[in-house]
């Protein structure tokens, strides 16, 4: 597999932007040449359209020129921040780029001098070796700084949803369904379509649920800051749901036995719904790139007695592994359409 060949690989700056642009009342300032912003704006806009969401990411570039590189870009950033703060956003996020970290602009110093509006610095220079995920994690940790000391509210945070993922909302719906089965409700989606004020309640939750284990550094940070335990990943495939329910229940001191029994029935009924495709031969030229996704496909094939062979009917597989039984059901619907086509 080529590195950087999947949607969530790539530049640290892009990773951070998938987080910061989801704070609806904030403005993100990218301190660097115009192209760094333009390229990411296009990517975020186009991906949102692909995900049926028409949105213009709230992004501003400091438009660094060669002259600014030679003489230092701190003045340009300072003026850009003044312009942005005049618009009275809920918060300003300042993201660095390769060139400003090369010439050594003191971005933190410029931001600390601003008062009235929270101005947060997120280090995002890609050449330092970080990945897209480094950007996501850096952004989440920086934004966690906006949380206020607050009493617990017994709810659950969803941490680090993949905002570029096509099924981001479906996956959220599935996880919140599972939580509600245990009598739990969602506090905030950190960070998916929320306001800067909502971030204040981050520390009130009794449990954090991470989108996937690459967010463990964020989970650990939040545990450190707010004593909130975390579950390291969304439930993946048909075998992920029950352990997920068990660990959430365990973390919250809830008896999960009835919920698990009910969910087992639902899983089995769902698979029964696809009895019509049982025994078919399938193949895929685009099996998921990650081993996790491949295991889900193999699990489902085994349960439905589908034969995976190069001669089988090509079926589509989602880019990231399906979440919960709802994700498996959507995948099987697509397989059925392919098999009956």
């Amino acid at each position, binding site marked *: 597999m080529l590195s950087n060949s999947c949607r969530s690989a790539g530049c640290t700056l892009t990773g951070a932007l998938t987080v910061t642009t989801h704070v609806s009342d904030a403005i993100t300032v990218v301190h660097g040449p115009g192209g760094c912003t333009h390229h990411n704006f296009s990517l975020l806009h186009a991906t949102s359209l692909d995900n049926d969401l028409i949105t213009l990411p709230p992004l501003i570039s400091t438009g660094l020129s*060669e*002259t*600014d*590189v*030679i*003489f*230092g*870009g*701190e003045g340009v950033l300072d003026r850009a921040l003044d312009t942005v703060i005049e618009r009275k956003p809920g918060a300003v996020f300042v993201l660095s780029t390769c060139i400003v970290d*090369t*010439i*050594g*602009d003191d971005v933190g110093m410029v931001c600390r001098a601003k008062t009235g509006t929270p101005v947060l610095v997120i280090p995002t220079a890609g050449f330092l070796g970080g990945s897209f995920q480094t950007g996501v994690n850096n952004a989440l940790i920086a934004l966690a700084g906006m949380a206020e000391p607050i009493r617990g509210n017994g709810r659950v945070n969803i941490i680090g949803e993949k905002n570029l993922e096509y099924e981001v909302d479906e996956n959220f719906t599935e996880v919140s369904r599972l939580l509600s089965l245990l009598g739990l409700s969602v506090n905030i989606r950190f960070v998916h379509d929320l306001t800067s004020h909502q971030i204040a309640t981050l520390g009130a939750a009794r449990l954090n649920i991470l989108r996937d284990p690459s967010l463990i550094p964020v989970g650990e940070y939040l545990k450190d800051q707010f004593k909130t335990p975390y579950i390291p990943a969304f439930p993946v495939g048909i075998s992920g749901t029950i352990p997920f329910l068990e660990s959430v229940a365990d973390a919250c001191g809830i008896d999960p036995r009835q919920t698990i029994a009910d969910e087992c029935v639902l899983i089995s009924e769902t698979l029964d719904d696809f009895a019509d495709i049982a025994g078919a031969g399938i193949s895929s030229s685009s099996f998921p790139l990650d081993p996790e996704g491949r295991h889900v496909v193999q699990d489902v094939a085994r349960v439905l007695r589908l034969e995976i062979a190069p001669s089988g009917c090509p079926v589509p597989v989602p880019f990231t592994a399906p979440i919960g039984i709802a994700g498996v059901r959507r995948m099987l619907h697509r397989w059925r359409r392919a098999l009956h086509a």
Partner: protein
Amino acid sequence: MKQIALYGKGGIGKSTTSANLSAALSCAGYDILQIGCDPKRDSTRMLMQGRLIPTVMDLVRVRGTEKVTPSEVVYTGFNGIRCVEAGGPEPGVGCAGRGIIATFQLLEKFGTLTGDVIVYDVLGDVVCGGFAMPMREGYAQEVYLITSGELMSLYAANNICKAILRLSARPKSRCRLAGVICNAKNQPREEELVAEFARRVNSNLTQFIPRDRSVQLAELNRRTVIEHEPESAQAQVYRDLATRVMKNTHFTIPTPLEIEDLEALAIEFM
């Protein structure tokens, strides 16, 4: 057109030597352009009767690249020598190396890089790609190292050999080590030591410049020695240097020394 660059440790006398060399070459009838490539911008001061001329980067900072004209960056000094100072950012911010690159691009665009000899007076340490710009293809093909017999000065000269070695390996690069100039600090056996250093890095001693009070006196009078005391022995040394530079055809790829070898060499001549 001959393009030469002088590199060496900070404070070793690059600007003094460059200015006197330019003055001597000019008096020998050559059309000279001297370019100071150090943000400290004092390379051409003695050629300009003590005046710190506006730098290319000063003009760019105030007006932007588009609004700077060729006549504003070139100043005519002693005996018609054309002087340019690259300049750079304030100490501690920005990127001085990029400033050198931008200056060269602007001078190229203006067609300023003409004459019989261009003398590039460059920052002592080739700290980044920008300060190696004068060694790149199309610019100085002859690099002179200025050093005294002091170890730290030889160490800096040796480091510059590494830069020349690296750049000379590039395709089409014609950058070569042209010689070592000893700007003496009045140490015993200094000439021998620097000559031996030059030999070990696969070059030779182009000129031994003795330490002489006439240099300080000329600087206090904001002149080069050539202008201030043309009849002095020191002025003759600079004229000899100029003659040797013009006649020099021995350009080599240097063989930098390891630090241990350099130390051993210095101890040998102690």
